[in-house]
């Protein structure tokens, strides 16, 4: 029997690969996420560790992250998150080793450096370049409206005039097609994020430069003017509608001529609305240009209590090169992160190549990388959405929001 077993058994059973676990909530980017598993197999050949990717649904991901990271058991070894929240408000992150920090600081566009940092310490590897909004226009709808898709509006006044031409109304005066696909649903944090480019174009900022005060900024005269303009898009100008669903889908369904979105939207459109002919331009300017800013930037973060954190850093070191950066982002249609990749044929061939360069050439707008950014953006977003729905006027709504934000900041 022993002899028979010896003959039939394989020479040597393959060793069970060990795993490091990665959590991501980017459910809209499956190819991007899957890539870590592919590279993990390659990494396993030298380290013995593969990568397991767990996609957590975006809605409510914070609760799952928090429960796991507080509880330690079942926590990921590394995860996609926001530095100022997970490393700032909570102390869940391992600091980046010096050699890796050097690699990344030398290869990231300068405006992206704060994305991975909190109070001067570097924790995260930014994973999304072009995470600022740009203007996507529907070429067909532009032509139908008598607009030239090769000459996009450069100022907010020109933009508003174009939005009016793009809007189509029914007999009762309700829009059946709108100029602008405006975000009005969902969590107020998202509402804030989509409104900020308008605020920045008006020269407003949500918080003081030290991020310690809202009054005088969130309710300053520039912000009030910006919110007037934004609210009027729905209530007075009727170039945006609350009766439409998600703005991404509205644009994908050719029911809106323009949307402001990040670089990933290029990949999303190619996949979900391939018959939409679109072009991408820099956002229109008013007093200022909105520039390359964002409210919630994403990074890869290493869990400081992970028993495998050194392996994870090794893995991140393993993929920290221009080739992998390009490969991973190209798979999903996202702009790569490394500066050197921004001049590759892939990026040059993208419809947002020129606009990205133009946006990056503008001054970097204010960032709000505060540990309580979600709560602050909620208070602010409630004022914005309240105005859109006619619940309040810009000035008193913003006064109320600013007072709440100051209370949050003092807490």
């Amino acid at each position, binding site marked *: 029997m022993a002899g028979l077993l010896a003959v039939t058994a394989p020479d040597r059973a393959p060793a069970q690969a060990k795993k490091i676990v990665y959590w991501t909530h980017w459910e809209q980017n499956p190819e991007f996420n899957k890539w870590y598993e592919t590279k993990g197999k390659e990494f396993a050949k030298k380290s013995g560790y593969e990568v397991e990717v767990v996609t957590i649904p975006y809605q*409510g991901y914070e609760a799952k992250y*928090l429960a796991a990271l507080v509880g330690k058991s079942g926590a990921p070894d590394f995860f996609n998150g926001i530095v100022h929240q997970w490393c700032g408000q909570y102390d869940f992150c391992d600091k980046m080793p010096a050699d890796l920090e050097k690699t990344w600081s030398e290869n990231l566009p300068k405006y992206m450096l704060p994305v991975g940092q909190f109070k001067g310490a570097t924790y995260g590897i930014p994973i999304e370049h072009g995470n600022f909004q740009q203007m996507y226009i529907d070429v067909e709808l532009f032509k139908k409206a008598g607009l030239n898709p090769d000459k996009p509006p450069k100022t907010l006044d020109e933009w508003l005039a174009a939005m009016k031409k793009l809007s189509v109304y029914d007999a*009762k005066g309700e829009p059946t097609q709108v100029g602008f696909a405006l975000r009005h*649903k*969902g969590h107020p944090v998202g509402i804030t994020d989509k409104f900020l480019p308008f605020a920045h174009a008006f020269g407003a900022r949500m918080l003081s430069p030290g991020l310690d005060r809202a009054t005088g900024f969130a309710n300053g005269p520039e912000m009030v003017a910006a919110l007037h303009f934004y609210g009027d898009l729905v209530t007075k100008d009727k170039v945006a509608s609350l*009766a439409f*669903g998600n703005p991404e889908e509205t644009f994908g369904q050719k029911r809106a001529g323009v949307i402001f979105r990040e670089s990933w939207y290029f990949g999303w459109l190619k996949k979900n609305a391939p018959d939409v002919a679109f072009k991408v331009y820099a956002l229109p300017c008013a007093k200022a240009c909105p520039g390359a800013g964002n409210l919630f930037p994403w990074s890869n973060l290493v869990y400081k209590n992970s028993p495998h954190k050194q392996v994870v850093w090794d893995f991140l070191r393993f993929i920290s090169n221009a080739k992998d950066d390009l490969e991973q982002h190209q798979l999903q249609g996202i702009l790569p992160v490394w500066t050197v990749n921004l001049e590759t044929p892939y990026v040059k061939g993208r419809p947002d190549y020129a606009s990205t360069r133009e946006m990056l050439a503008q001054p970097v707008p204010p960032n709000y990388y505060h540990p309580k950014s979600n709560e602050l953006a909620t208070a602010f977003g*409630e004022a914005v*959405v309240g105005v859109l729905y006619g*619940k309040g006027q810009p000035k008193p709504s913003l006064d109320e929001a600013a007072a709440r934000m100051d209370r949050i900041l003092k807490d």
Partner: protein
Amino acid sequence: MDRQRRAGFLFVLPAVAYFACVYFIPLVESLIGSFYRTLPGGASRFMGFGLYERVFTDPVFWNSVKTTIKLLALSVPSTVVLALAVALGLDRLTLRWRSLWAAMYFVPFAVSLVAAALIWQWLYEPVYGVLNHALALVGLPPQKWLQSLNQVLPSLAAVNVWVRLGFDTMIFLAALQAIPGEYYEAAAMDGASARQQLWHVTLPLLNPQVVMVCILELIFNFKIFDQVYATTQGGPAGASQTIIPLLYDTAFKYFRLGEASVMAVFVFGVLLVVTLLQWRIFRRPVDY
């Protein structure tokens, strides 16, 4: 302790252990947590009643309580009355038809709340939704449903009724079938009309079930979360921000576990008081 008592304890032990782990310990933890502010890194600072003061002076919190009560007022009476009506109708059917219809009413209860919410989100969709399509067929203008400040709560209440109707109907139906037929025969012989039989025989005998269903519906609606979070996330403009989604955001979006614990204690306290009051006021002993 005699053998019989020991056996009794052993039988209740699993349920007590489950209750302790799943309800009692978290409740005590919430109560303790409501006095502490959790600091970065997991450290905590004792706040006394400071967090209670913060929550109870926050207009956003009271708005969410008001919205919860509004939704509750729309959902609970409709569900109970409709369930009673459906149960009375089903009770008159033959066994075969009764089973078929009862199963149909019960199916929504078996659907996950998030799935139910997402289904209704599509039905309510202002442009492509079936409901507006149906309105158009009869010449009525489209409605904004979940995207309207005024219609969002009734729209969510309709989802609640759809989800809960089957469960309540089953309870009423079981209770109706347990009422001895002799009571109706006696009432009929005394000349009681159908309406009088319903009012003087059926409803008093259903009182325990009505009280129980009212309490369950109240608890269900007060704790409403999935439907709101999956469909409106409290919107539009905060018009459907009920208390549990606010609690969830406070805990997991803003990482204010202490304040969220205060809200949890508030919900527990309110439900306890209301349930006890409801039980005391509405529960009347019925003698056969």
